[in-house]
């Protein structure tokens, strides 16, 4: 029965050997995954992956011609006896005192030199290394050339140190032969703590029922079946289950044959690492979930955010001030020159907010000029709350559907530059060209016209005054040219004044309309600047996290084996 199962498995194995390139690309995917999730996910969840990457690099750099096989099992199951039986030499001390073996022993088939580095890495002391290469054996042992057999300590005795040593070694070896015996094959510790944890390493797991000679021959199949049932419960269905006995050399032939095959294939190390990758990928599988759009911040949330930021940055205040400043300045340019001076007494609304002309409109190209802080009133508590709510909204909306840990990362990213926001907003407002610094041509025209009519009025007045003075002095009175019935100077004076007032009156609605336009323009520009800030300070970090998530997903998909 074992033979059949084994043959079927071998057939399956033969069809899909693990290629080193595939394995390396999967390992690289795991590395990539670690790189992109760094800082976003709890470190303790990533420990197995980090260990794997380190371990795999070390193992692949070492001899791939050797296969490290460990005999692991409970105390008293006969690991050392089996070890000696396989080596056909008394290498590992065998005893009745439990626990017998305290440190790992290694036996190398073939020259020791090649395996020394490997054993250094595995951590077997030099004096516990033996070489199984004897001229006497002739070709008997040649089939096992490249085998490094380890005899591990037990993991269930009162010596806790043994268990730690076993745990360490089991992470490093290529193939594990679990040695159980009729007394202990159903022990909890071996199944729960060990075999179950190796269910992804089915390819490199072998279970042997040692001391089979102690069972009545008729009972052996029943016990083997029961053992297989337990292994199925450990999700290890289909692993080779062999009955062995150290007393009888022939009873180990099965195991020897299996080891010979493994050594010849040179696949165990790769399969072991492939299983490790499987385990790591499964361990972190719940850290990624469904795909998300990379620009997963929807327009509504972003709009809300820029609204809130605009309110907090005082955009309405500045826009209002812009409108008033436009009126103010337009009035100063186009108003009736006689009363224009009054305006000087009133402050310019924009200057009051400390929004002086900057290097706007490109006439000053020194970009290094620092931007001064404005006097725009700071945000109210409610506005600040609105900003915080909007940021929260962006984070929540972007992280909807993400698996645990990621929403935290997204929220953290959304808030990462919250402290920079006030200054960034203020700077944006200060640096925005509000479009009221240059005098439009029509202001100058109207202003010139005003001056013209005022000059005309003054000319008329002067003319009249001269005429009056001439009359007072008794000189012959001047002859005013007449326009219709009205003398020219009078017409100039009154017409000039009236025209000035008329122009001012006519221009006023135009100014009002233009001021509103200027306000709208300023508002648009400020909003654009604020939106830019929102993008830089809130949305960009969120997108970066979402990108990491997508990359982590891709990496993990690449690391998953294509079975």
């Amino acid at each position: 029965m074992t033979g059949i199962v084994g043959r079927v498995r071998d057939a399956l194995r033969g069809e899909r050997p693990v290629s080193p390139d595939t394995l390396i690309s999967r390992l690289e995917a795991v590395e990539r995954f670690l790189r992109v999730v760094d800082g976003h996910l709890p470190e303790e969840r990533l420990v197995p992956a980090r260990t794997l990457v380190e371990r795999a690099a070390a193992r692949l750099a070492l001899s791939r011609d050797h296969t490290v096989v460990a005999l692991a099992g409970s105390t008293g199951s006969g690991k050392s006896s089996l070890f000696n039986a396989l080596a056909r030499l008394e290498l590992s001390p065998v005893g009745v005192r439990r626990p017998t073996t305290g440190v790992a022993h290694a036996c190398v088939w073939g020259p020791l030199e090649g395996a020394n580095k490997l054993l250094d890495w595995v951590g077997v002391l030099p004096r516990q290394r033996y070489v199984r290469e004897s001229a006497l054996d002739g070709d008997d042992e040649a089939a096992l050339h490249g085998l490094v057999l380890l005899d591990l300590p037990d993991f269930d005795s009162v010596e806790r140190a043994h268990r730690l040593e076993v745990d360490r070694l089991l992470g490093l070896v290529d193939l594990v032969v679990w040695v159980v015996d009729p007394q202990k094959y159903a022990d909890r510790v071996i199944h729960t703590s060990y075999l179950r944890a190796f269910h992804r390493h089915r390819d490199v797991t072998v279970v042997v029922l040692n001391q089979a000679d102690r069972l009545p021959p008729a009972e052996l199949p029943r016990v083997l079946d029961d053992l297989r049932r337990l292994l199925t419960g450990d999700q290890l269905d289909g692993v080779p289950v062999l009955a062995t006995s150290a007393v009888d050399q022939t009873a180990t032939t099965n195991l020897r044959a299996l080891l010979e095959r493994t050594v010849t294939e040179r696949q165990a190390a790769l399969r072991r690492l492939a299983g490790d990758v499987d385990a790591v990928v499964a361990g972190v599988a719940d850290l990624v979930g469904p795909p998300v759009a990379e620009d997963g911040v929807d327009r509504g949330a972003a709009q809300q955010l820029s609204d809130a930021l605009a309110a907090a940055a005082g955009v309405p205040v500045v826009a209002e001030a812009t409108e008033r400043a436009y009126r103010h300045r337009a009035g100063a340019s186009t108003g009736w020159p006689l009363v224009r001076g009054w305006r000087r007494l009133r402050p310019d609304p924009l200057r009051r907010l400390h929004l002086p002309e900057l290097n706007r409109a490109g006439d000053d190209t020194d970009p290094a000029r620092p931007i001064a802080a404005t006097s725009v009133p700071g945000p109210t508590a409610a506005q600040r709350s609105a900003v915080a709510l909007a940021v929260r909204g962006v984070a929540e909306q972007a992280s909807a559907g993400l698996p645990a840990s990621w929403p935290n990362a997204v929220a953290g990213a959304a808030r990462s530059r919250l402290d920079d926001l006030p200054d960034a907003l203020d700077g944006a407002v200060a640096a925005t060209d509000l479009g009221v610094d240059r005098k439009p041509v029509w202001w100058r025209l109207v202003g010139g016209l005003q001056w013209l009519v005022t000059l005309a009025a003054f000319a008329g007045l002067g003319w009249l005054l001269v005429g009056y003075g001439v009359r007072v002095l008794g000189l012959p009175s001047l002859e005013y040219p007449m326009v219709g019935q009205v003398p020219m100077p009078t017409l100039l004076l009154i017409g000039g004044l009236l025209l000035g007032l008329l122009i001012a009156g006519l221009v006023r609605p135009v100014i009002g309309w233009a001021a509103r336009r200027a306000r709208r323009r300023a508002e648009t520009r400020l909003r654009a600047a604020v939106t830019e800030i929102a993008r830089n300070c809130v949305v960009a970090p969120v997108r970066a996290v979402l990108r990491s998530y997508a990359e982590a997903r891709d990496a993990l998909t690449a690391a998953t084996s294509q079975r």
Partner: protein
Amino acid sequence: MTTHGEPAADPGRAAVVPDPPDDGGAPAPAAPATDGDGGAPAPAGDGGAAPRSGGDGDGPVHEPESSDTDPTPAARAGSDARTATPTPTERPSTRQPEETTPTEPPQPGPDDVLSGLPAALTRLRTTVAATAYPLVLPSADDARRVAHGLVAQLDDYLLPRLDRLDAPLLVVVGGSTGAGKSTLVNSLVRARVSAAGVLRPTTRSPVLVCNPADSGWFRQGELLPGLTRAADPTDEPDTLQLVSAPALTEGLAFLDAPDIDSVVDANRALAAQLLAAADLWLFVTTAARYADAVPWELLRTARDRGTVIALVLDRVPPDAADEISTHLSEMLAAHDLAAAPLFVLPETEVDGQGLLPEPVTAELRDWFDRLAADAGARAAVVRQTLDGALAALAPAVAGLATAADDQAAAATTLTDRVRGAYRGARRGVEQAMQDGRLLRGEVLARWQEFVGTGELFRTLEARIGRLRDRVVAAVTGRPAPERQLQSAIESQLVTLLREAAAEAAENAHTGWQAHPAGAALLDPSLARPSDDLPERAERLVRDWQRDVLELVRAEGGDRRFVARSAAYAVNATGLAVMIAVFTSTAFIPTGLEVAAAGGTTVAAQKVLEAIFGDQAIRNLANKSREGLITRVNALLDEEAARYTARIEAVGVAPADDGDTAVQAGPGDGLRVAAAEVEAARAEAHLTDGTRLALPGASS
């Protein structure tokens, strides 16, 4: 090893004990419990003054402590006599009235001495069973397990055993899977009573073997009441198969327990329960297993509990017997278990019936025969184990008490974190209202519009103002400025509250996340404020606005002002009061704007002063601010209750408001109950303090 008086005593007891129709053995268990006290003065004229130690000395025996056989029959005679006396009931909890029964003045009767114990134990059981450890803490898992085990042990063993100190000695055969427990039991009773086999684990439901004469007591179900008695082999969980074996000496029963270390978890739990109910542990291990970690843990527990242990080292290869038994003896000595007798059985072939060959088990059988024959030794074993188990209660309960305190402390910590988070939110809201920041910005702009158009003054001329406003509103379709101002305050307050609640929820969530117990109680909805919070916040603000209007109306009513001013004026006044609430502290001159705001505030105040007078305005402002804060507090408390309700739902009450030092922690109840048991145990003097030394394996 015993005197010849003993066999005579046994039938006497056998006559009493296995007789189920004897009114439920009710009076009987109560009485023997008293005189089983080993030489302590029997109540009815039994030379009650004889000290316990004296009893030890006068037996013509080899082992000093197992010697005292004489008092037992005598006492039993006394007890038989006492069965006729009107003992109320046999239940431990109701045994206290018996304290008055003994009439011997010089020394209280043993009944009296013992009677405190069951009552104290029952109280302890109630307390332990009532204490839960629902929060996920490092100590909680252990505590739950220990508490469960403790209650089980009290029910299964301690209470019934105290009731009947002279009931047959129960030897529980426990050990690793594959150690050969069933084979050993079968061999000891020379019958296939428990199935043995090569498949592990073999025994899944326990088998109890006893002499037919004793089966009444075990069938009765006082001991291990949670297990259903069955006559046939069964695989049902929670059953105890009872088998009578005539080959077994009376007074002794073997219980073949399931293994302690196989993959079948139920077996382990059951084995632990059975071992806790043992008078004597017969620990079976093998040459391959004797250094396994799991059994040694159990042995340590047994040692700490003072349980009497005997060991069987089974399946020893004949040539290794010396080395292994020496090593095992060393290990036993290192674990302070050197006193436990050790029997070494070689690995042999079983015979056709599946029994070990007679010579192999002869020594062990012999040892048990002697124990069975010696009632005094049996009683000593029972007392030693009982006393040890009782003594072990105190440290176990102390551990439980610590765990219970941990639970309360964790609940307090979690509650504090929630409170802290919401306190922060509350403070933020209060500050926002206090320093008038809410008023700047939009509210300020609206207020200036309001004042600038002269509407405030206009509205004070109530009728005209109201009429005109209605006309204007009707013509333009725009809401009156007053409305706008109100909604501005409303929206700002709602935003403020929503953000405060969101931040508090997040902080509370983070705080709980960082705590293992908190993380287990959380669910995603707790990271956010409750879904209907915006509606509730809006409702809150509207309610508060109505309150303010009502307040103004009431205040004004006193001055008979309302009678003359129309509703609109009151509305405007209320509005002004609302604004005063926010601005009354905003006089810090930080620029023109504040001056402007201050100016308008002064204007509003002046107007109001004109109507109500200065003091009245201040009162109004304070009252309405307080009203708002009270409402906000209530809202935030409701939000916080979402968290604290989770703690309450799992049944842990946090200590109140930091007065933990004064209040009694939940662990104190346990400590008191344990102290009572300990005191009762000390009074009962079950053993004389020296450790029982069982007869050696090789005699």
